[in-house]
């Protein structure tokens, strides 16, 4: 059987999800033996930019016409398109205030030149093209990436946790930062999958994996309001990694 063809792409972001792939140091050469990576600009200067792809892995958000055009071109070549990381799945940090006056921000930062830049409010991939699989996380978890490849190689789709981070946190028997310390912890509404990495280090969850599908926002907001946090601040915190309106 011929090896499945794979392309790895980065739109606008920090390249952290591609770096997670390169951080699979013990698996990298095995992976190269199992899949045929045809395009991976961050790691190779020999790329086939036109071939059909069995799997396209795309990280980053769409923040320019150029990003949108690249994404549509990748979609047209790929049987399966995977959104890699919180920016691709939700829009990520660049989308936190996408209602803001963008020309004003561009001018503030770059002067008048900024007004001519190719720049638009950040979007998640699914807002531009059809996405077949989402792997969230900022960055994604290595295990989730490897499980995705293993499953896709076998014609399967990986399954990721659909419960909130709090569930993982309790399994680790951590003291609750929210109820016991009154910290603004996003655990109750954030998708699990990181083994509650931050609360496990006594650091409140910032919600970098994006919201869990059945998040109980109103109950969390009420709990936080009881602890003295104002509603505007809570709302700003909740949209830091996943803007309102990006929900799928």
């Amino acid at each position, binding site marked *: 059987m011929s090896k499945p063809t794979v392309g790895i792409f980065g739109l606008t972001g920090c390249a952290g999800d591609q*770096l997670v792939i390169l951080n699979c*140091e013990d698996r990298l050469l095995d992976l*190269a033996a199992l899949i045929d990576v045809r395009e991976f600009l*961050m790691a*190779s200067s020999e790329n086939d930019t036109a071939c059909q792809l069995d799997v396209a892995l795309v990280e980053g958000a769409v923040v320019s016409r150029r990003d949108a055009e690249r994404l549509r071109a990748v979609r047209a070549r790929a049987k399966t398109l995977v959104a890699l990381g919180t920016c691709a799945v939700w829009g990520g*940090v660049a989308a936190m*205030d996408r209602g803001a006056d963008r020309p004003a921000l561009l001018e503030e*930062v770059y002067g008048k030149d900024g007004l001519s830049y190719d720049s638009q409010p950040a979007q998640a991939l699914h807002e531009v093209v059809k996405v077949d699989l989402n792997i969230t996380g900022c960055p994604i978890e290595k295990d989730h990436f490897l499980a995705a490849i293993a499953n896709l190689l076998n014609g399967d789709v990986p399954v990721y946790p659909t419960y909130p981070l709090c569930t993982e946190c309790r399994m680790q028997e951590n003291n609750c930062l929210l109820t016991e310390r009154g910290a603004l912890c996003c655990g109750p509404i954030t998708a699990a999958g990181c083994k509650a990495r931050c609360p496990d280090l006594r650091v409140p969850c910032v919600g970098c994996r994006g919201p869990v599908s059945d998040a109980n926002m109103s109950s969390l907001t009420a709990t936080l309001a009881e602890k003295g946090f104002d509603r505007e601040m809570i709302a700003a915190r909740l949209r830091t990694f996943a803007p309102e309106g990006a929900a799928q």
Partner: protein
Amino acid sequence: MSKIVIDHLARVEGHGGITVELEGDTVGAVHFDVFEGARLLEPLVRGKRFDEVAPVLSRICSICSVAHTLTSLKATENAFAVRVSPQTELLRELLFRGESIESHALHLFLLAVPDYLNYPSAIALSADKPAVVLLGLRLKKLGNLIQETIGGRAIHPVNAVPGGFGKAPAIEQLIELRSALMQGMADSDAAMDLMASLPAADFCHCDTVYAALRSPSLDSYYAGDEVMAVSDGSREIFHATDYRALTNERAVPHSHAKHSAFRDKPFMVGSLARLTVNPRRLTGKLAVAKKRLKLQLPADNPMDNNKAQALELINDVERALEIIEQLLRAGVKDEPPVPVHPRAAAGTAITEAPRGLLIHSYSYDAEGRIASADVITPTALNAASLEMHFRKAVEQSAERDDAVLSRKLQMIARAYDPCISCSVHLLRRP
């Protein structure tokens, strides 16, 4: 007029290209084109509380996420006059070393070395020379192990917070790191041997201005508030709060990165600049390695930055081991972060990210929310110097063949180890 155009630079982080215009043998416009999308993170961080800032600005770049996190924390702590414990200082320096080891190993082995040996990628190289690639991957993994142990995650560390750390590492974890670093000693020596064995890369020579953090211990990426610029044997020192005197940024139409010049000359930051500014780091094993690499300082060849990274790999492993020994001797306390008392104040911090000087400068309102933020990254600082070296390489090349010139330009670009996501940053005008 003819043009050399490299549309989309491969084997670098982010999205950039190169354009060089030629009028016969005369070099016209030279552009390092940055077309990474603008994320406008600095204005977006406005209104965020002091403890929310580092997790957002860390996302400027994955490869430098420790540097962004710790520089952000240092700027915030400077604003609120927070003095962290000596243990926190040591752990932060160790975290910096972990990032430097990972970043240099990634850059040298996966991005730069394939060029010298005429391969398109490390994966292609691994088919013929698996030992070389495995060596690089081992060093990379070592850097990540340090970042995971101290920072809680290899990318976008979560354990470093204003005032200290969420949780200190356990003694057993430090002992495990120590044994990994022992292997790292041999591996960083082997990396230097490899770099010394590569064919010479000599594409341009010219006087270069270098700028780097001047640390009180001469050997820190984290401590210190002064920058030294070295130019033609003359030296000039700036305090962190006067960083604009050094950077003089201006926006340029072809790039979303801003360009910097010092006394009207471009300057280079990164490993080579660090060794030039702090040459006294190069004692013992490093002095021997410098000789083997045939590295002269100050260098007039930007490709020497690759050699400087190989030297720093040795230094980073040595320094990380020293820090761990020091922590094990003193014992690790599980201390809570120093409390932060916000007030209306401004704070600036300068550190050394793997690819050079990184500056975060904030002002806070009375409630401890960001009023304005300015971030200046090494790749933005390097952009003008990079264009200068592109120009010299084309001017000094006897060959006029496009493919030859294009290869030289790409290798120079990679030697700078650009991090293009980083370079797209926003500057609030004063």
